[in-house]
């Protein structure tokens, strides 16, 4: 496979190739007139062809990892990320590159009319090169998707730690979901921080929404309770469902040093009482 003639062909017929390519893109399988304006498409195509030509002039068209291809790859990466934001699918984006094949190879055939063998050689070389560049767009897609997922996971870590002020001196921390150890530390840190910030006397940790309480979760809970105590706050653990209570007994987890309540309501009642409040119900006298 060779691409000896590629720079020369690009030099000679760039305008025509661009024309054909843009036409191809506007009518072909990857066409998305709804997402991108014709003018923009033409501008991008021209920019790509210019970079492509410069990189091809290096004569290194087998390995796109070489420095000569860096500007082209960078442009592809930019275009791909831009198109992803605009709503193009990965294959539509790859087609941007692949659709260059036909107009380019047409020029090769015209140029090497008298030497069919060389034309085949050249075509195969160019084809392989464009395949690599096209596949590069999917790599970029993949990487940016992974980045999105990673960001969402981090956001979830942050989102999942609501610390609710219940009353003067009383905060509540409803724990919801799986407490893998990464999240548990975040939750506990955030609770301790809020206790300090609010100067709370009592923190209610509600575990109604935690499906499994094993020794690791218990250890985190107990550590948090101990740390809170050092900062002058008492913890109440609420929402221990019957099946969880039974399981904790089998695990020999000792919660005797902690106040536990079946429900958040009971925990709040206890917390209010301890901070010197009383909840009374109005008595309505019947006539």
């Amino acid at each position: 496979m060779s691409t000896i003639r590629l720079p020369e062909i690009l030099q000679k017929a760039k305008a025509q190739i661009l024309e054909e390519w843009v036409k191809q893109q506007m009518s072909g399988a990857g066409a998305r007139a709804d997402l991108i304006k014709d003018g923009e498409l033409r501008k991008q195509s021209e920019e790509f062809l210019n970079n492509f030509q410069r990189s091809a002039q290096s004569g290194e068209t087998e390995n796109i990892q070489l420095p000569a291809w860096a500007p082209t790859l960078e442009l592809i990466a930019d275009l791909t990320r831009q198109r992803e934001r605009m709503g193009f699918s990965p294959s539509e984006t790859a087609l941007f590159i692949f659709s260059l094949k036909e107009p380019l190879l047409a020029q090769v055939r015209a140029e090497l009319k008298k030497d069919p063998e060389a034309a085949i050689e050249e075509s195969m070389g160019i084809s392989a090169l464009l395949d690599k560049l096209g596949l590069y767009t999917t790599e970029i897609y993949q990487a940016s998707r992974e980045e999105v997922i990673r960001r969402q996971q981090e956001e979830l870590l942050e989102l999942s730690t609501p610390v609710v002020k219940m009353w003067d001196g009383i905060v509540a921390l409803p724990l919801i979901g799986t407490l893998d150890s990464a999240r548990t530390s975040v939750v506990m840190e955030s609770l301790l921080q809020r206790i300090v910030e609010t100067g709370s006397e009592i923190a209610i940790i509600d575990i109604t929404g935690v499906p499994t309480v094993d020794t690791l979760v218990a250890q985190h809970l107990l550590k948090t309770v101990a740390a809170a105590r050092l900062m002058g706050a008492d913890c109440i653990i609420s929402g221990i469902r019957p099946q969880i209570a039974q399981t904790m007994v089998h695990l020999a987890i000792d919660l005797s040093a902690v106040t536990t309540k079946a429900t958040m309501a009971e925990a709040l009642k206890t917390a209010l009482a301890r901070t010197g409040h009383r909840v009374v119900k109005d008595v309505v006298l019947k006539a």
Partner: protein
Amino acid sequence: MPTLKSEVQPVVTENDIVYVRQNVRKWAVEMKFSLVDQTKMVTAASELARNLLIYGGGGEVRLEQLQEGSRMGLRVMFVDQGPGIPDIEQALKDGFTSGKGMGLGLGGAKRLVTDFDIKSIVGQGTSITTTKWR
């Protein structure tokens, strides 16, 4: 004793422990275990999967649905090729830990299931089989 269904899950990261718990719960629900028994199986699996990851350096969890006469069993096996446990009796004791845990997981898991079988060879690995019947 016929095995009706089986599945193997690798455990190499912290997230895999979450998947093990989810899977054991799914199987226990499908097999119509009571809520208390579901919770016990899931919690035991959580303990043993974490031990397998932390001390055994990762391994495999195998789930099996068994039938013996009219009773059904959920079997969960934990197999690692880690350092093994030199003194099983000591490891099972409440409060013994060689790490930073509370030393309650192994003994606790044993109390949470019906059958508990542990084999461990130093330098070769640990294999623990737990079964609960209904």
